[in-house]
């Protein structure tokens, strides 16, 4: 099973995982990693390595970082040179839920990472505009 690490500033990573678990139940092979103000980069680097090795079962790991260019993302990118690792930035809840369910399907790690990036983007919608359209063409 592909391992997942959610990496963020502050408590976002933990809260995202706990929110996802509220919706679909316990997520297997998922770890979190966070950087608090004042955390030395070396500590974060050690935490990231630990998180990755905790969820790596040999099928590779996808890191879902909160912000492109932020420290969790940058540190993940340093690691992906040496390991079977893909890094996504701009994590959102739909992406994390999809990451969990995609693991039961047959695909390469880079394919899975690419699919997740576009899925995350597709799931950012102007919901009120969609509702206005739906009211004009009712489905029910």
């Amino acid at each position, binding site marked *: 099973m592909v391992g997942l690490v959610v990496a963020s500033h502050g408590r976002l990573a933990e809260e995202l995982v706990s929110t996802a678990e509220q919706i679909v139940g316990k997520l297997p092979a998922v770890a979190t990693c966070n950087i608090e103000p004042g955390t030395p980069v070396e500590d974060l680097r050690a935490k990231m390595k630990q998180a990755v090795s905790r969820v790596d079962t040999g099928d590779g790991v996808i890191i879902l970082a909160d912000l492109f260019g932020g420290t969790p993302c940058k540190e993940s990118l340093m690691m992906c040179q040496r390991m079977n690792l893909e890094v996504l930035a701009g994590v959102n809840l739909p992406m994390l839920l999809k990451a969990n369910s995609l693991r039961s399907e047959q695909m390469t790690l880079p394919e899975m990472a690419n699919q997740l990036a576009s899925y995350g983007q597709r799931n950012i919608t102007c*919901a009120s505009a969609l*509702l206005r359209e*739906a009211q004009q063409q*009712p*489905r*029910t």
Partner: protein
Amino acid sequence: MITLVRVDNRLIHGQVVEAWLPHLKVSRVVVADDEAASSPLIRAAMALAVQSAIEVQILPLSQVDFAALSKDGVRTLVLLRDVASVPFAYAHGLNLGELNLGNVHFGTGRRQVSPSVFLAEAELRTLQQLAEQGVRVEARAVPAEKPVELPDLSERWVKAG
């Protein structure tokens, strides 16, 4: 065919869309609820949450033909808002050997029997009567969770008093 009947006061929401629909592989969701059916806005908003490949029907409870849903070959999830609606469905053609309790939220006179289910005494009695007719009642918010069966729910209800 009816694959699952679920009591959930939120009807169609995150747990249903993200966990139950993929798990059950249904092609139809039927919301049997007067309040939801009476509002075009609620109907549109709930249907919007379900991918377009899945048919969504949102109807007043009395207008749902449970017998027809049971007979055709379309895998169906039936959603009811509360335990009080369940006997009506069973009296009008629903014949399924199991009932899932998803979210039954807290209110005055209700006791907690699982993380997401709070039952009033009359509801517990209703469920016990269903069980006597051979229906397996379970509380389970999401498929991956361990189901809690009615004997345990009843025991917890008594203890919570």
